[in-house]
């Protein structure tokens, strides 16, 4: 056998490359898990986890919703038991207060429309 017979040819080298291409090393499960854990930890924006969370965020989060609840309760209480110096709006709405008569005789009296022409 000559020396050239013992040397690797281009074709044989390509056979080795093809063997490497056809059998890529499998990625260890632990490595892939770690990569995905890194990705989750480093993700810049966390998506909303549900409709309620999105609704809460649109209202300004916890402080915003707290303010809304407080204002609603105060308004309801004022409506039910108004302070003494405020008009009784609930009574007016329920027609419990007598109406005030307005004297408009001057506006409808004879001669007013004549003077206006």
């Amino acid at each position, binding site marked *: 056998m000559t020396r050239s*017979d*013992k*040397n*690797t040819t*281009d*074709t*044989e*080298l*390509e*056979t*080795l*490359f093809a*063997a*490497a*291409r*056809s*059998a*890529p*090393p*499998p*990625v*260890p499960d632990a*490595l*892939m898990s*770690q*990569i*995905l854990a*890194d*990705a*989750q930890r*480093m*993700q*810049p*924006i*966390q*998506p909303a986890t549900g409709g309620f969370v999105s609704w809460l965020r649109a209202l300004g989060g916890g402080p915003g919703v707290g303010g809304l609840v407080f204002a609603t309760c105060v308004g309801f209480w004022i409506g039910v038991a108004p302070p003494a110096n405020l008009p009784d709006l609930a009574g007016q709405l329920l027609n419990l207060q007598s109406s005030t008569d307005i004297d408009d005789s001057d506006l409808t009296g004879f001669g007013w429309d004549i003077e206006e022409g």
Partner: protein
Amino acid sequence: MNMHAGNTEPDTEAELLARYAAGDPAAARLLAAQVTPRMFAHALRVLGDQAEAEDVTQDAMMRLWSIAPEWRTGEAKVSTWLYRVVANLCIDRLRKRGGVPLEDIAEPADPAPSAVQGMQQATRLDALQAALNSLPDRQRQAVVLRHIDGLGNPQIAEVLEIGVEAVESLTARGKRALKTALEGRKDALGFEDDTI
């Protein structure tokens, strides 16, 4: 378009990266599944060490997640950028090894014996890895990128940040050095059994 079987369309990778930056939890899983095997395989072939290849791959992927919000689609391909990061991390590791004898570097584990068609293919993979380990760092990277990862010379030039002519020179010298390293092992590798 690169015809390597494991490659994906660069635009798809950029789109997945943009979706990841926008908060899509599924995008990271899809993108990692597409690029991680290629980066890990490259690191393993260049470093010849399983644990170091895993470290480099994880480090490179962390850098990808980190840069995702600032990524500008169209300026670079995600896989090319990742190959460059992996290549630089590998060079750092190889330089830190310094005078560590090649024989002290652990051989990588044989990938899935059932998938490599028996002992002969495992022997060939081991012989190729041993020969790759004997090459100078840059020649090894260029040969792996060209002949195993299947990249074109212009893309390799981007990865290694050198000219295309320098890539051609590196791969040519690398192949010659591989042949020298494999000298005398022809019989053991069983080439006469092949029908090519």
